[in-house]
């Protein structure tokens, strides 16, 4: 059982989370949402760990307050928000089992990026609150751990801005799951880039609610997978009110016997007129043992909206390949160039040059291997 930490929760709340997970159980492919990511199969005989994993924060810049969730006597802002957002089966598990994690609160506009690293085996929780007008760039790194389940809650206050770059390096044989639940208040903006290089089963789930006018979410991501890797990005983006905006751009390259998955559901609530949502998901398969599964979903209940999505799986463009070769570039180099080019625009959403370079380097390394 848990120690006397902020995550001990009230007995009622703990019971709620624990029973949510227990009754739903570890998802199999028969659960629609996990259709392409059979967690039960990946775990095999191993149970979902009930241990607590580790986290590490980079140098804390001014304007950011931190609370260690393993400690008792949590401040009000932690008590109010922890465990308050939308819960899924796995985030219920992380809430029930995690006995540690980090809470961050940003009150000002912070220039220096903050790095947050998750490592080890087990569960973790994170809570990130940006108060009105606050701004932060968060760089999330994952490392090691054969099995990890991280539940994150993010609350963006009015006019707050969060830039989030998440780097999940290839973790052969590892099961890494992260669920992020988020609310975005009016005029606030969430911009994120997720670079996933796969694992035995790696899944990032995002539940984003745009709850105030002019709230925005712009998501992008790249995946380069080899061998037996699996990487699943599942987003559920809700335009709860009108005049909100969202864009999603995901590019994946799957080689070997890997599997790249994208499920992106966009919901526009009744009356949320003026919502604007675009989604693009594209995958390139290298070799005939890789698989791409794309499911961009639209659930629209308001009529005065602009919603569109596109998805494509294919090979490199023949015209482009010919153009490069006709100018002297050998075929394999031309293919490489085009594969890099294919992933490039998904990285354009990363505002900071240094972070973009970091992601690009990781991509180049993954492509070279």
């Amino acid at each position, binding site marked *: 059982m848990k120690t006397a930490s902020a995550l001990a929760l009230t007995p009622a709340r703990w019971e709620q989370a624990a029973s949510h997970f227990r009754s739903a159980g570890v998802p199999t492919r028969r659960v629609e949402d996990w259709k392409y990511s059979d967690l039960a199969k990946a775990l095999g005989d191993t149970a979902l760990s009930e241990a607590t994993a580790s986290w590490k924060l980079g140098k804390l810049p001014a304007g950011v307050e931190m609370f260690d969730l393993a400690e008792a006597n949590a401040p009000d802002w932690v008590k109010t928000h922890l465990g308050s957002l939308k819960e899924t089966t796995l985030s219920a598990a992380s809430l029930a089992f995690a006995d540690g994690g980090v809470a961050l609160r940003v009150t000002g506009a912070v220039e220096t990026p903050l790095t947050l690293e998750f490592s080890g085996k087990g569960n973790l929780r994170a809570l990130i609150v940006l108060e009105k007008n606050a701004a932060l760039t968060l760089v999330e790194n994952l490392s090691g751990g054969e099995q990890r389940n991280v539940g994150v809650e993010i609350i963006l206050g009015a006019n707050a801005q969060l830039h989030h770059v998440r780097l999940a390096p290839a973790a052969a044989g590892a099961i890494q799951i992260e669920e992020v639940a988020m609310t975005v208040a009016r005029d606030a903006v969430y911009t994120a880039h997720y670079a996933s290089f796969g694992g035995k089963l790696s899944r990032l789930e995002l539940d984003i609610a745009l709850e105030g006018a002019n709230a925005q979410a712009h998501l992008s991501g790249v995946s380069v997978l080899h061998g037996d890797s699996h990487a699943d990005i599942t987003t559920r983006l809700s335009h709860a009110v009108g005049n909100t905006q969202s864009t999603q751009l995901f590019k994946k390259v799957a080689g070997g016997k890997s599997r790249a998955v994208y499920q992106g559901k966009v919901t526009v609530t009744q009356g949320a007129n003026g919502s604007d949502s675009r989604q693009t998901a594209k995958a390139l398969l290298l070799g005939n043992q890789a698989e791409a599964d794309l499911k961009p979903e639209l659930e629209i209940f308001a009529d005065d909206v602009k919603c569109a999505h596109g998805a494509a799986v294919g090979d490199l*463009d*023949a*015209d*482009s390949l*010919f*153009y*490069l*070769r*006709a*100018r*002297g*570039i*050998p*075929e394999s*180099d*031309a293919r490489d*160039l*085009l594969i*890099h*080019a*294919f*992933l*490039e*625009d998904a990285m354009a959403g990363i505002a900071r040059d240094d972070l973009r370079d970091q992601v690009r380097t990781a991509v180049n390394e993954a492509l070279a291997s």
Partner: protein
Amino acid sequence: MLEIKNLHVSVGGKEILKGLNLSIAAGQVHAIMGPNGSGKSTLSYVLAGRAGYDVNQGSITYNGEDLAALPPEARAAKGVFLAMQYPVEIPGVTTMMFLKSALNAQRRSRGESELDAIGVLKTVRRKAAALNVSEDMLKRALNVGFSGGEKKRLEILQMSLFEPKLAILDETDSGLDIDALKLVAEGVNALRDPSRAMLVITHYQRLLDYIVPDRIHVLAGGRIVAEGGKELALELEAKGYDQVVKDAA
């Protein structure tokens, strides 16, 4: 330099070139004119080595070598350059990066030393200025968002950079207004050289006022049906393709 004998080419199972003969020597500028659907683009693509253009019969000899046996990148390294009618857009690849990769790939193939980034940049900048290709265009993704004229100018810039021995210009004038046309023509004329042959493919006579050919061939129904000097262009203009083809028959 280029000897095409009895060339039969089919695309998608359909025969487009039906016994084409053509001979071009170094230092010469030849023009190929023809109505739409006559096979002009097919000729340019088969010379550059595009997949899907199958040589069923005949030969293409380039400086004594069988060109049809070589992949496109090898032909480029040996000095064949095709300025395309519809240059492709490649998002994610900057123009500058592309020029450097292509130039050095060709040099490597020929056993020459590669140029470093600074070297390429200097050379490119110099040539770009002459063709009105802006610094901005060099930084942007290849051809993405370029106007028709900009795309054509970039093609000529590449021709200037790669210094080909056989330059094939496929309807370089299409979509250009007079000013753009003049600029492109100047660029092409500046590259005339006794060691270089050019094949200018065009539908309209207008371009040939600016790039004056030594010889004109009329392509119709997949083969050359008439030949002549530069005056043939004016005759075509006056009579139209149908008539000239009929006269030749």
